[in-house]
């Protein structure tokens, strides 16, 4: 194998020797220490391989052996280079390409995060960037172990992290911490009311109910007791567990201005593209327009070849014009706005509360509307209150 490579680098020829006694050429070449290989007898002569330099040296021998030689094929690097002699740009391009390859291979092109199911990947990327693991960083300056330790200290939700550099890419493997299991307390407890209301339903699983269906209760009142006196005069302590459904009324209000001023996006947009390679950014498009009020959005398209991220991306900055708009709210519109506000509040702030009815009132005030709603809700008002048996 090594011999073949050396022969290729030096260049070799296959020649054909014809004459009365081509064997003599073999003898003369062997006697002078000129190596030739794979001699094959052919019609009226023989053919063999010989290095290009030695082929020139055997010319005097051909005369002595009375044979005529002819090169049938040329192989090796010198012949390829000779073909490209007039193409300096080709060599320059090859050298520039090789240099570029060597230089670019010293940097981290991209990295992917594996194992982040509940933790935000962007949060991990931000922390890694603060610790030096960022696209375009020289690999030699990367302290992986320090970055792992520092990142883990910052990210409480992760239990393990490993930054594996493979060539010009890195694979950041993370393991999330397991959630702490809910430990059921065995401490004796009472159930008390979390707010005022009228009890509509009692589902006691443990403990001794102190109220009845239809009873009115106030916040903090004992609903289900965890203490039961025994016939023998002693006390039995349990952990009360119950669902106590109660109805209550709640007033909600919202002040809405009659006149709204806001910025709206118009259809006027300006796109500015920049070619990004590692830390280098070059403008691709030139747009000099400006708006009085502008909102910016950014989009980055990263080049991927064969599933691998290449450090070449086009970053598009879109500047959208903002137009000053005003809107006057009517009473009916104010009621609809308030109703939507109520629905959103119930959906996101009181998800476990069942709304039985609501009465909405909108009053026109100076420069706006005062919206009031009286809602009748039903929810579980049971609140566990632990106590110490030594009390």
């Amino acid at each position: 194998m090594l011999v073949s490579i050396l022969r290729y680098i030096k260049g070799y020829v296959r020649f054909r020797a014809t004459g009365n006694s081509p064997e003599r050429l073999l003898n003369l070449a062997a006697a002078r220490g000129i190596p030739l290989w794979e001699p094959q007898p052919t019609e009226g002569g023989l053919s063999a391989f010989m290095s290009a330099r030695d082929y020139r040296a055997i010319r005097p021998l051909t005369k002595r052996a009375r044979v005529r030689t002819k090169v049938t094929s040329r192989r090796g690097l010198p012949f390829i280079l000779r073909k490209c002699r007039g193409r300096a740009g080709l060599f320059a391009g090859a050298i520039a390409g090789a240099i570029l390859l060597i230089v670019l291979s010293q940097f981290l092109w991209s990295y992917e995060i594996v194992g982040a199911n509940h933790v935000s990947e962007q949060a991990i990327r931000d922390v890694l960037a603060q610790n030096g693991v960022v696209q375009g960083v020289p690999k030699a300056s990367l302290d992986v172990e320090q970055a792992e330790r520092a990142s883990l200290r910052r990210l409480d939700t992760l239990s393990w992290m490993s930054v594996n550099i493979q060539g010009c890419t890195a694979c950041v493997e993370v393991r999330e911490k397991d959630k702490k299991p809910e430990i059921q307390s065995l401490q004796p407890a009472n159930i008390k009311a979390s707010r005022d209301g009228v009890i509509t339903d009692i589902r006691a699983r443990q403990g001794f109910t102190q109220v009845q269906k239809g009873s009115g209760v106030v916040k903090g009142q004992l609903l289900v007791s965890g203490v039961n006196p025994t016939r023998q005069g002693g006390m039995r302590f349990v952990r009360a567990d119950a669902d106590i459904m109660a109805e209550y009324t709640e007033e909600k209000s919202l002040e809405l201005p009659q006149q709204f001023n806001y910025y709206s996006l118009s259809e006027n947009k300006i796109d500015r593209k920049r070619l990004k390679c590692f830390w280098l950014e070059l403008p691709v498009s030139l747009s000099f327009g400006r708006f009085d009020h502008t909102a910016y959005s950014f989009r980055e398209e990263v080049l991927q070849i064969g599933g691998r991220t290449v450090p070449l991306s086009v970053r598009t900055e879109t500047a959208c014009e903002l137009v000053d708009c005003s809107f006057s709210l009517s009473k009916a519109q104010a009621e609809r706005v308030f109703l939507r506000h109520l629905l959103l509040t119930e959906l996101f702030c009181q998800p476990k509360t069942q709304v039985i009815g609501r009465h909405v009132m909108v009053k026109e005030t100076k420069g706006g509307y005062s919206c009031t709603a009286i809602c009748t809700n039903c929810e579980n008002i049971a609140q566990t209150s632990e106590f110490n048996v030594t009390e």
Partner: protein
Amino acid sequence: MKKKLPALRLDLGTAPLIEIVGNRRVTVEGSTGILLYETGCIKLSAGDLVLSFEGRGLCLHCVSGSCVEVEGFITKVDFLS
């Protein structure tokens, strides 16, 4: 009176060393030249000897100043002189 050595022992110093591996390969050390090179017959000069190898698909695998390696399906080996 000085006793003469036998002729066989005198020739050993210049005689070629022939190594035959089955009927597929022959290495001749002490060869002084190739006399005939054909696929069916190869004749080698080795000092006072002329060796002839006949067979099918014969070829010279290695040719150097004093060593020749013949490969192929050898059917006959002759010592011509």
